[in-house]
């Protein structure tokens, strides 16, 4: 039976993890490779590395990191942040990433999704959508959720799916950081409407939030960062919890 996926997300700046990471096992708390290894051993189903490095020359550091991660871990991983051209994708996949995610670049130039899907296959192209509800309507935001666009989330999601995105990473800016649960309404709406998997992101605080997003939210996967980094929730206990409540997950421990 196909299982629901749990995906920790690591923010990367100049090849190092940012945001506080609270892992006593880590010799070097800023080393993404070490953290990635721990997550994969604990039963994470995939990992996402989000690069927040601004400058172009620092991107080389990211490519080197991707290669190190690919050598070290035995589960799939996605790399996102600043990906905008076919060449960017080629370099990251060539270094060993399994999938890439694009966000602002796709909003600016939607045709890039078609180009990337044609060149590398839909299976490795994730489109990240940052959404925010304004007066009852869901609008796409870019630049880390700071910049509103005139695109409605539902129609943009349909468009990226039609253009060949393999999955959608949906982050609710209204829920991100609140720890009050995922945006299940819009997640469920997109999941029912589209033929591709939806990864829910933003708002995880308790184990029940994952259960909610997999049931009411119809999410195919759920992504979270700080609750895993600060060990508020361990992946093995989360999976045991979900398994005990009828959500099919991959148990490894």
């Amino acid at each position, binding site marked *: *039976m*196909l*299982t*629901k*996926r749990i995906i920790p997300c690591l923010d990367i700046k100049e090849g190092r993890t940012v945001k506080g990471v609270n892992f006593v096992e880590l010799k070097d708390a800023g080393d993404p490779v070490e953290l990635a290894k721990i997550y*994969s051993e604990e039963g994470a*189903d995939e990992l996402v590395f989000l690069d927040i490095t601004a400058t172009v020359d620092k991107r080389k550091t990211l490519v080197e990191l991707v290669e190190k991660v*690919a*050598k*070290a871990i*035995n*589960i*799939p991983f996605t790399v996102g942040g600043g990906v905008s051209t076919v060449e960017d994708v080629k370099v990251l*996949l*060539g270094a*060993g990433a*399994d999938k890439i995610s694009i966000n602002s670049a796709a909003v600016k130039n939607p045709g890039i999704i078609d180009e990337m899907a044609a060149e*590398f*296959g*839909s*299976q*490795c192209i994730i489109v990240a959508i940052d959404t925010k509800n304004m007066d009852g309507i869901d609008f796409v935001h870019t630049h880390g959720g700071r910049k509103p666009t005139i695109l409605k989330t539902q129609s943009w999601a349909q468009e990226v799916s039609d253009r060949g995105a*393999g*999955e959608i990473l949906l982050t609710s800016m209204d829920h991100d950081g609140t720890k009050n649960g995922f945006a299940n309404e819009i997640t469920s709406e997109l999941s029912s409407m589209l*033929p*591709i*998997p939806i990864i829910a992101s933003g708002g995880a605080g308790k184990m029940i939030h994952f259960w909610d997003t997999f049931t009411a939210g119809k999410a*195919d*996967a759920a992504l979270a960062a700080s609750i895993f980094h600060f060990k508020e929730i361990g992946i093995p206990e989360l999976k045991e919890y979900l398994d005990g409540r009828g959500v099919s997950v*991959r148990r*490894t421990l």
Partner: protein
Amino acid sequence: MKVAIIKYNAGNVRSVLYALERLGVEAVLTDDFETIQKADKVIFPGQGEASSAMKYLKQRNLDQLIKDLKQPFFGVCLGQQLLCEHTEENDTECLGIFPIKVKKFPAFEKVPHVGWNSLENMDSPLFKGLDEEPYTYYVHSYYAELSPYTIATTHYMHDFTALIHKENFYAIQAHPEKSGKVGETILKNFLAL
């Protein structure tokens, strides 16, 4: 032990190389006939589109080379589909080592089939040391039909062929190089054949 990974125009071949490195096995990524023929084990990975992969193999006579190999051979993902007779993906004639048809998943549920799914009806030395119904990682839109050569099945909408075996040829639809410890065990068992 010499392990050759067949190099061709299919993505993600380096992941297999890295997975073998983690097992302490040095492999070569090559399209050199002699190196492939003399290898103790041959791995045929791949992710991508079937017709362009077949065209590439034929242009370089790699198709005939593969058919003539006698050592243990392991097709992975697209590598499994190409060992079959025909795939619906752009109506492509494949290598025909297995008399099996490869079909597209119907659109009843989400396609591609992405994520971790369990192996069932396992019957092969490749599964030595694994628990019942272990999970492997899948990303695919096409699947091999059930056949007498099927040595494990997976269920997505319906049962399909997860792994096949005939003489020296083995193949898997999932990605063992990305399937955690389960994938490592399957790779190790293949290398021990």
